[in-house]
């Protein structure tokens, strides 16, 4: 009698194991990985990034049976490896990184890409703001002056470097007598206002916000140059090996995030207004600038 009971107990656990294993296999088949660079997402503190992205991930795959894992990556080299290995399904990249590694990435990602919108447009317009004493002058005339720069804004920094290189043939370190690195982009404008610096580069929408806080600053500063709305600051790539159904679901959820209160709350954590799809051809303006910059450097 006891032996029979032991047998039935083992049989029962074996069935249970098989069931669980099959579920596990099934679960592994529905797992999506979202990778991000640890030194990105400057809007958030380091200890908040993982949580915020996981919240985003959960919202994206809600009620789908899909599990999305958020994976931080220390460097683009590591990211590159993961992409090559097919271990990354989605990635959030700085626009500059896309430009820099476009040739590599284009063989892995599928279109449409996704981009975020922070200001009035999904593309950013970088402006150069200078002290009013320099009205009527060009950027080239400000050689040897002091620049305030928010260095973590890679795409903006790249654009400034492009402008300086294009106009003077110098890099920014040699063009300006002093570069004051600021913790925020808006602080760069304040430096110009308070006279700590002579000029700065800043996204237009941030400049507008700064002026809104104190319109009186326009008495001492002016916009010297505007890039125009051609820069995508952040892009979300999804890769070819991702199941179409899942891709469609996730892309759709990303696009509809700002339609729900909870989705908007999550976007607010990243200071994002909305997420859009973007066609490749819209990247061409900034790609062209990058290519031009590359050619200038080769000279």
């Amino acid at each position, binding site marked *: 009698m006891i032996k029979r009971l032991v047998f039935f107990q083992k049989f029962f656990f074996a069935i249970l194991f098989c069931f669980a294993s099959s579920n596990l296999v099934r679960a592994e088949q529905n797992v999506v990985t979202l990778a991000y660079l640890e030194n990105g997402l400057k809007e958030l503190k380091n200890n908040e990034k993982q949580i915020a992205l996981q919240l985003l991930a959960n919202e994206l795959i809600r009620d789908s049976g899909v599990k999305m894992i958020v994976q931080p990556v220390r460097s683009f080299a590591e990211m590159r490896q993961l992409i090559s290995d097919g271990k990354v399904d989605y990635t959030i990249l700085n626009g500059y990184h896309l430009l820099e590694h476009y040739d590599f990435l284009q063989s892995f990602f599928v279109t449409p890409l996704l981009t975020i919108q922070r200001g009035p447009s999904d593309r950013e317009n970088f402006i150069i703001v200078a002290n009013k004493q320099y009205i009527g002058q060009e950027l080239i005339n400000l050689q040897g002056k002091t620049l305030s720069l928010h260095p973590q804004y890679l795409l903006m920094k790249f654009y400034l470097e492009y402008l300086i290189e294009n106009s003077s043939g110098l890099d920014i370190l040699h063009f300006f007598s002093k570069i004051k690195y*600021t913790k925020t982009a808006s*602080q760069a404008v*304040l*430096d110009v206002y308070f006279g700590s610096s002579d000029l700065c580069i800043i996204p237009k929408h941030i400049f507008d916000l700064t002026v*809104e*806080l104190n319109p*009186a600053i326009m008495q001492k500063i002016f916009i010297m140059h505007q890039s125009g709305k051609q820069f995508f600051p952040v892009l979300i790539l999804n890769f070819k090996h991702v199941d179409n159904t899942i891709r469609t679901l996730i892309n759709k959820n990303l696009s509809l995030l700002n339609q729900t209160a909870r989705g908007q709350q999550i976007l607010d954590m990243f200071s994002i207004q909305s997420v859009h799809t973007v066609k490749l051809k819209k990247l061409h303006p900034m790609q062209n600038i990058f290519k031009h910059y590359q050619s200038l450097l080769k000279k």
Partner: protein
Amino acid sequence: MAVKIRSRFFLRVFIHFASLVLVIMLSFTFMMIPMQKKALLQIMYTQGVTVSRSIIQASSDAIITNDFGFIVEHNVEVLKNNPSIHYIAIAPLRGKTIWVDQTGWRVLEDPISLLTELQSEHIEYEIEHQQWEAEGYHLVYPIEFSGIKWGWLHVDFATDEYNAYIRDMYLQLVYLAGIAIVLLMVIGYFFARWVTRPVSIISDLATQVANGNLEVQSKIKRHDEIGVLSNSFNKMVQSLQQSKQKLENYNQQLEQEVKKRTLALDALNQNLDKKVKEEVHQRQEQERLLIHQSRLAAMGEMIGAIAHQWRQPLNALSLVLQNQHMNYQAGQLNDQAMSRSMEKSERLINKMSTTIDDFRNFFKPNKQAELFNINALVHTTVNLLDAQFKSHNIEINIACEENLNIKGFQGEFSQVILNLLNNAKDILLERQIVSPNISISAHRIANGISIRVSDNAGGIPDDIINKIYEPYFTTKEEGKGTGIGLYMSKMIVENNMMGKLYHYNNSEGAAFMIEIPTQLPK
């Protein structure tokens, strides 16, 4: 059993208990509120100092290098992350003040008095209403680096949380007070009930006992003074019951006794009537007898007095007859001698006849009260006994006012005077008094007349002085006195003439006083 709410004792205990607890609660509340406010202010102060220090620490490099861009940016960020801060102002010692609030920031061209007033070497604060629509807790923190003053940091915190806390505190106090009052009512009710119920029960029981119900018992069993009171009450009621039973038994016995005595008294009463009537009849008979005896005695006295009065005239008449016989024998009896003898004899016989008339009139009872003169009566009475007085050399002194007239029974009153004179005469003779003397005086007193008959016989002995008016009491030998003279005299004076007859001893003898009203009452 609920305690009657109208019980004054219950209300008193309840009100006192409730008042005490309310006073304590209110005192605690009034003490606690300022303490809480002070604690809150301290919390706000600490919070303000902490925020100020963190701002200064984060901005220290920028402050030292006058990097206002960083300062503004940092403070804008601080305000963005702290909606409860109304504004931050950075006021350097030299330079313009930068003002950052929730709408933006600006450089103040002129200093604001709100800011400069509080700037000092120490951390200052105040709760102000001027600058902001809402109340604000304004903290001024002096900025120093290595002892070098740089300026001040002004931070204005919204006091919404503080006010909300105070409001909550007041609300909680109100709720607590409400709950406390409800609890107070309930606990107070039960407490007052616990205290007063036994007393009320015992009071009710006592009232029932007072109304006559001794069957009540207190069922309160406690181990305190109330329990002692309850036990004592039960013992008292038991004792009362026993006493009542005893009383009832005594009462029954008494009733039986009373019945017996009543029956006896009834019988006695019935006999008494008969006895009283018999006694009254007997007394009346005795009185009639006394009066008869008195009259007989008086008659005896009268006869004696007449005999006495007649002795001298009879002797004188005998002498006249002897003279006449001698004159006849001597042959000297002529007409002249015969006339003289006849005249003398007639005078003597008239005197004897007058004596009888006097005595007859004297002892004739009066049928109705008549007005008579005391002086005349006294003289007439004395005349009746004049011969006796003279024969025994008893001096009679009469001093009566002339116009003393009274209305009464003259004959009976004469008897009284005669009796007093006879008694005086008898005692004077008995004691063989040398120079015996009897004095009679009468004078007017208020509403009447006073008559005094006194002698010098030495007075009435003390052992008999209170008995002399008793009937049949006499000090004379048997056969010599009846003992009813003074009794009758008293009866006549006090009953018939509404006067008083009393006596006393003086230095010489006895004195008898008669006081008679002038007119008998109608």
